[in-house]
Each structure stands twice: as structure tokens, then as C-alpha cells.
């Protein structure tokens, strides 16, 4: 991400997530770490991994706290699951699907990605309370 783009993203994040985000470099990867609060006041930490050619390429988003989210039966959330809208999952993190690749373009911002994940989190908490799959709440 070039400096101009970073200024643009920072201005939006400062407006909508003041003091709740930080840009960092982890293992030579540029990341954005964001703290999010659900409507039921539970706290989640996101790690948004920025590809080298961001914003032309879509970022990947991982929920890194709480670690290894569980489903309504107390089992680890399935990886690469249509029902859970997930990709890679392991003991450390859950990768969440957000934008449809066909809907991604450089005009989208990290703020919009975070908002998509916020809605995923609400759907996840809905899954915990109702037992319905996340796909019951999120249309593709």
C-alpha cells in the first residue's frame, strides 16, 4: 500500500474506529489490527493482512482474539465452510470471508472490510444463541 493510500485509509479509520486500530508489520507482512466490540459487548481482535498489491487485491481477515472460535456445540469452527463463511481456521485464528471477489475493487476500503466482519461477528453470535448456521443470516 502506498503512502497516499495509507493516508486515505487512516483518515477513514480515524473517523470510524478512533484509537481502535494500528498498522503493523508481522513477519514481513503489512497488517492492520483492529479491536471490535459486538452488540453484546464482547471484544474481538481482527488481523487484516494486506497483500503487496493492495488495494488492487483483496485483503485477508483473521479473527485472532478470542483464539479458535467455537461453534454452538463447543467444537472448533470448520475451515473452508460454506455454512460458516470461513476459510483457513486453526488453533490461533479463524479466517473470515467478507467481500465477494467479484464485488471487490480498489475503491473499497479497509473500513468497509471491517464492517463486513462486524456483521459476520453478529451472525456468529446469532449462531451461538440460535444454533442456525451463519449462512442463514448472511446472503451470498
Amino acid at each position, binding site marked *: 500500500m502506498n503512502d497516499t493510500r495509507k493516508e486515505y485509509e487512516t483518515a477513514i479509520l480515524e*473517523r*470510524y*474506529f*478512533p484509537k*481502535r486500530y494500528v498498522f503493523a508489520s508481522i513477519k514481513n507482512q503489512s497488517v492492520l489490527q483492529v479491536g*471490535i*466490540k*459486538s*452488540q*453484546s459487548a464482547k471484544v474481538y481482535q481482527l488481523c487484516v493482512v494486506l497483500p503487496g498489491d493492495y488495494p488492487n487485491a483483496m485483503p485477508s481477515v483473521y479473527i485472532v482474539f478470542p483464539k479458535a472460535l467455537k461453534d454452538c456445540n463447543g467444537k472448533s469452527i470448520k475451515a*473452508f*465452510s*460454506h455454512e460458516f*463463511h*470461513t*476459510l483457513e481456521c486453526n488453533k490461533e485464528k479463524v479466517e473470515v*470471508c*467478507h*467481500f*465477494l*471477489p467479484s*464485488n471487490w475493487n480498489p475503491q473499497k476500503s479497509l473500513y*468497509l472490510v471491517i*464492517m*463486513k466482519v*462486524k*456483521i*459476520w461477528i*453478529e*451472525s456468529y*453470535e*446469532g449462531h451461538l*444463541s*440460535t444454533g442456525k448456521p451463519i*449462512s442463514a*443470516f*448472511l*446472503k*451470498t
Partner: protein
Amino acid sequence: MLGLLILIIYYAFMNKDTFIPATNNEVLKSLDQLNKGNRNPSRQLVFDPSTGEFVVAKQSDVLPADATTINSIAQDGFANARSL
């Protein structure tokens, strides 16, 4: 007694523009309405940057120009493992 009445009226007017935080259930209902094709619900859920929460707004409420509604975020769909 009169003082209490004045206090109640004061708070009623002071808080008339205060949005109420949405519950998780209200968020899910809003998503359900969107999934059913209702893109113009009577109550909108708007992201409040000051709290980091969605709040409930009536259609008649005047929202800031840069307000983000849950519909505007969710309406273009979500990816899943099959769509990637």
C-alpha cells in the same frame, strides 16, 4: 414535585435525538429483512463511530451524510468458501 416534573421533561427533550444501541437480535432481524428483499425497512441500524456499535434509527430520523447503515454494508453479499 414540580422540580421532578421539570427534570423529567428536561431529560425527555435532551434525549430525544439519542439513538438506542441495537441488540444482536435486532441486527439478525435486519439481515433477515434484507435477505427477504426488504431494502427499505422502517427502522435502520446505523453504525455509531463513538461507541463502535449499531444503533437503531427510524426512517424519519435525520442521519449524518456519512452514516453507515447495516443495509449498505450487507446488501452486496458475503463471500463463502464456494464463491472463492
